């Protein structure tokens, strides 16, 4: 691999080092932390949607599971954060396996409806099981992340935790995409029949990528719960599932950087548009509509086109 292919990643790593040194304003730090959290969830959903070509409108449920498990375990039972996080990811993966078995037999709109229904069920359970989840009022007082004496007890440290995790996951995910299993899941997108003819167990592969993407969403949920210190059923709404899908689509399906771009845009945009008060949703919707119309490949594709234009302009 050429050094040039690593430039974006090295730039990101330098950026992660630079932010704690330069950004002191807690408002901006908070936004950056949220971008990192959503970008992790979006990376997993991109594997499922962009690469394997399967839609899920229920991923907020995995995010919420990821948030509720450590919330319950740390506040009620004093379980260490790291164990809570591991339990959250494991539970979300197990639930994804059980839900995925019947759901992934569906295709297209039916798969979307199946996962939508699953997300709604989890949302209802979170509201109704007051003993366990605190019901609509949720769970407060979730501690910051930490292991022993190492505590991410301020925004700067938390920023580093989230973004170093993102960077690690990005590298691991990119490795997967450029490998035997990664090519197999992209093959599902191209043609399920041909994938099967290549010896790929189509059902098994779909289930694998669904479970994997749920684990990413759960990890993002863990990071969210420990950062915000409060969790309510709002984290598991269908609207949030759709927002995650929008992040993937706007960022660029099947483009690993696209997930990050989509997460950044959809986190920053509402903040910027709050200036327009009552009209913010209108402008927000308008921008997304224009993007889907003129950049169907998402921000990542737009970036590539721009780079291509520069190269053509630069060479005789």
């Amino acid at each position, binding site marked *: 691999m050429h050094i040039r292919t690593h430039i974006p990643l090295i730039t990101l790593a330098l950026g992660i080092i630079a932010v704690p040194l330069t950004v002191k304003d807690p408002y901006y730090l908070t936004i950056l932390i949220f971008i990192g959290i959503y970008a992790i969830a979006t990376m997993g959903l991109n594997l499922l949607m962009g690469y394997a070509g399967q839609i899920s409108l229920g991923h907020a449920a995995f995010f919420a599971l990821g948030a509720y498990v450590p919330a319950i375990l740390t506040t009620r039972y004093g379980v260490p954060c790291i164990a809570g996080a591991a339990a959250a990811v494991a539970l979300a993966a197990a639930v994804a396996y059980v839900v995925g078995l019947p759901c992934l037999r569906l295709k297209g709109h039916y798969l979307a409806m199946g996962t939508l229904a699953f997300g709604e069920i989890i949302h209802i359970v979170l509201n109704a099981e007051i003993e366990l989840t605190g019901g609509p009022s949720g769970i407060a007082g979730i501690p910051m992340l930490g292991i022993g004496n190492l505590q991410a007890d301020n925004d700067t440290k938390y920023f580093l935790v989230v973004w170093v995790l993102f960077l690690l996951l990005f590298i691991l995910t990119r*490795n*997967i995409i450029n490998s035997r*299993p990664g*090519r197999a899941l*992209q093959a599902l997108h*191209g*043609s399920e029949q041909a994938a099967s*003819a*290549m010896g790929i167990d189509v059902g098994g592969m779909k289930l694998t990528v669904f479970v994997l993407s749920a684990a990413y969403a759960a990890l993002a949920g863990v990071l969210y719960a420990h950062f915000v210190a409060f969790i309510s059923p709002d984290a598991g709404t269908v609207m949030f599932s759709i927002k995650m899908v929008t992040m993937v689509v706007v960022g660029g399906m*099947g483009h690993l950087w696209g997930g990050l771009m989509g997460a950044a845009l959809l986190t920053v945009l509402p903040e910027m548009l709050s200036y327009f008060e009552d009209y913010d949703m209108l402008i927000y919707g308008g921008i997304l509509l224009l993007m889907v119309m003129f950049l169907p490949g998402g921000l990542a594709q737009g970036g590539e086109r721009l780079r291509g234009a520069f190269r053509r302009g630069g060479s005789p």
Partner: protein
Amino acid sequence: MSIDGTIVRIRDICKNFGGLAALQHVTIDVARGSITSIIGPNGAGKTTLINVLSGFLTPDSGSILLNGKSITGKKGHAITRRGMARTFQTAQLFGTMSVLENVMVGRYARTRAGLAGAALRLPGVLAEERATRARAMDLLQRVGLTAQARLPAASIPIGSQRLLEIARALASDPQVLLLDEPAAGLNTQETRLLGELLLSIRSKGITIILVEHDMELVMDISDMIAVLNFGENIARGTPAHIQANPDVIAVYLGEE
């Protein structure tokens, strides 16, 4: 023909779609290392037979033996792993992936790397990846697509796509290659090259089951031909035998 010489035994296969009998008691022996062609008019059940053989359809009755072992009702991916690979009537490539990656996917059944090993780029996985890439490049060279290796598969001409499908199927180290109309959409020159390619594949000991409408190609390269008509196997024999068979002339070949 001796039992040892038969690699695929198709026994009394029936397949109905609603009221339509697509295959009726079809029995064909395919000799190891042969090119066995299946011909017949449109709607005769040729593609249905390929789909049944490759595990995309389950027959209503009858059995299929590969190397003496039943593969009846097994799923497509399991049959590929057992050594029978296929192509499709309309090329089904992984369009956004590169030509090279398409062939690399074809190695799936013969490689092992899992998610964890791939994510961590373990030494064994990297070595396997290099071998997969080298093997895929070899196959592309064999079908003459080396120059197109990096292009998206959907962007290459139809004739090249057909060859790519064959390279991709060969990547799974098949003992039996099922080809569903590989010459469809090819010009005369391309068809001639395809014929040479198929003969060279046979010379490596790979058995080919060919469904094809191009009679010149079929008569040129086939060792054995089976004729289907309305789902029934009405004739079997060598090209010379088939060309002289009055029933076959009546339903398919016609008068010259």
